[in-house]
């Protein structure tokens, strides 16, 4: 007891540490353990070793679902990085350059941050519902009925719409991170390049971007993780089955279906779901390690 009294920091750290280990870290390991069993959650558990993984990768039905879902996740991440992130960078730069009305515009671009994904899903319904939605109603009133489609029900349109909506929701946060990093660029660097005759755009590429590499890395890492684990928005918009033909199916939806069972796909398969979860965990881990090495190199070089 005497030794503990001499370590006051222990009392500060212990509660958080216990909670963190019990509810965040241990579950990751337990998840892997569960994946070695066949279990529907209520009955008995049957040890089947790696059979769940074999089923995931060889049985055509599950493997197709798996590749479709993972493919969607990867497509989504790439869209976020290639389409949305540049927009966030440009917007941040525009605000940094103090365009007209930037104070109000900044806040309003950030506003969607306070919208729950349920609210965002609602806006999607409000706009895109084929029968009552605003878009189709307006098109009808403008006599442009030939443009009316089922939007989210259309296999080809669903994904782009989803990316646009998710981008809309996430635009503000990334932009704010970039903007704050831009603000910390020392004034003399900016002025020096102006003196050298650099216009706004070349300043952007040769001065601003290299200086905000830390926040770019930050946003990149967050986008990858969020992209690989997206769940709320597709669930709210199209339900746990991932929409028409799995056009909006993602790894976490696939996991959820199997973990808790929905009427459509039958009873819960805890072991199988845990296998999916573990695979996703490994994917995230691999990408994170790769990212850390790759991005550290860039950070050092800049």
């Amino acid at each position, binding site marked *: 007891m005497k030794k503990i009294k001499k370590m*006051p920091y222990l*009392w*500060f*750290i212990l509660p*958080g540490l216990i*909670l*963190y280990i*019990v*509810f*965040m*870290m241990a*579950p*990751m390991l337990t*998840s892997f353990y569960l994946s070695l069993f066949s279990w529907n959650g209520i009955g008995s558990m049957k040890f089947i070793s790696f059979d769940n993984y074999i089923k995931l990768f060889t049985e055509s039905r599950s493997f197709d679902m798996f590749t479709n879902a993972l493919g969607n996740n990867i497509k989504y991440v790439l869209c976020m990085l290639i389409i949305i992130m540049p927009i966030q960078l*440009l*917007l941040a730069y*525009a605000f940094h*350059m103090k*365009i*007209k*009305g930037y104070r109000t*515009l900044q806040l*309003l671009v*950030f*506003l969607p941050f*306070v*919208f*729950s994904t*349920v*609210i965002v*899903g*609602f*806006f999607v*319904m*409000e*706009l895109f519902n084929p029968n*009552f939605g*605003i878009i189709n109603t307006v098109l009808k009133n403008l006599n442009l009925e030939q443009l009316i489609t089922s939007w989210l029900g259309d296999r080809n349109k669903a994904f782009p719409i989803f990316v646009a909506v998710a981008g809309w929701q996430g635009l503000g*946060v990334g932009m*704010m991170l970039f903007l*704050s*990093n831009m603000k*910390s660029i020392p004034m003399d660097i*900016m002025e020096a390049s102006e003196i050298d005759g650099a216009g*706004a755009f070349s300043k952007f590429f040769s001065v601003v971007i290299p200086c905000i590499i*830390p*926040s770019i890395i*930050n946003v990149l890492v967050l986008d990858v*993780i969020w992209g690989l*684990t997206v*769940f709320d928005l597709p669930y*709210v918009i199209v*339900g746990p089955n991932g929409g028409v033909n799995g056009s909006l199916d993602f790894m976490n939806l696939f996991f959820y279906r199997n*973990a808790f069972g929905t009427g459509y796909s039958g009873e819960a398969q805890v072991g199988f*779901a*845990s296998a999916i*979860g573990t695979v*996703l*965990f490994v994917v*995230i881990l691999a990408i994170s390690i790769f990212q850390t090495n790759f991005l550290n190199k860039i950070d050092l070089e800049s």
Partner: protein
Amino acid sequence: MNRKRSKGWNFVSFILLIYVVIVLFLLLSTVFASFKTKSQLAESIVGIPNNPTLNNYIQILFVDGFLKYMLNSVILTCISVAAVLMVSSMTAYGLARYRFKGRYFLQMFFLLGLMFPIQLGILPNFLLLNKLGLVNTFAGMVLLYSANISFPFFIFFKAFQKLPASLEEAARIDGANEFSIYFRVMLPIARPVFITVGLITFVNLWNDFYLPLVFLSKDNVKTMTLAIQKYLANFLKNWDLVFPAVVLGVLPLIIIFIFGADKIVEGLTAGSTKE
């Protein structure tokens, strides 16, 4: 820096204006629609209502129990935010202000959580809480939220690192015990950080959907996000009731946003600049 008046920037302002108009249009449409009856909505989903009626609000609040769901959200979120602030600040304080072996390891350990979202461990958590009889309870939810402290921890950690050691030493000389130092000296100075982290956590937890979806299936404990989603899922049947639900769900946060937006931004951007 001169304000750029070139065509290029004005064009960007213009595009942003359109973007903002869309957001405001969506919000306003929703508000207007919440005052319309089903038949009025069928006529036109947009536009100012002719005979605004409070029926929808009365229906969801008192008949359907939306008031209960909102209260659940308020109670759960407030308790959870308090818990998160307490746990994460204490942990960050312990790691930031004391030197001991294994300190760096623990710091990295807590930051790992930033990389691994909570969904991956949801099944074991469910099984554990089930065994403890804490499914469908607020207590269970608070425990889960209090464990997910990587981000608040990170913010507090950076903040506490910056506090001057002289204050601590002065307090020690005066004979204060460690917890007193924490509570009476360091906390008051770090108040802005608490406000910021509190606001961000509040928004995140109020809007949380996944955890309530998994752990709060009994009707009397459901939160507002679940209630809205239920209306959405039954869109065709209840679509006139979705609008007031959304308005009520979004209103508290918009109010918080109007008063606290800059603090929220401050907190979110704390990690990305090299200090």
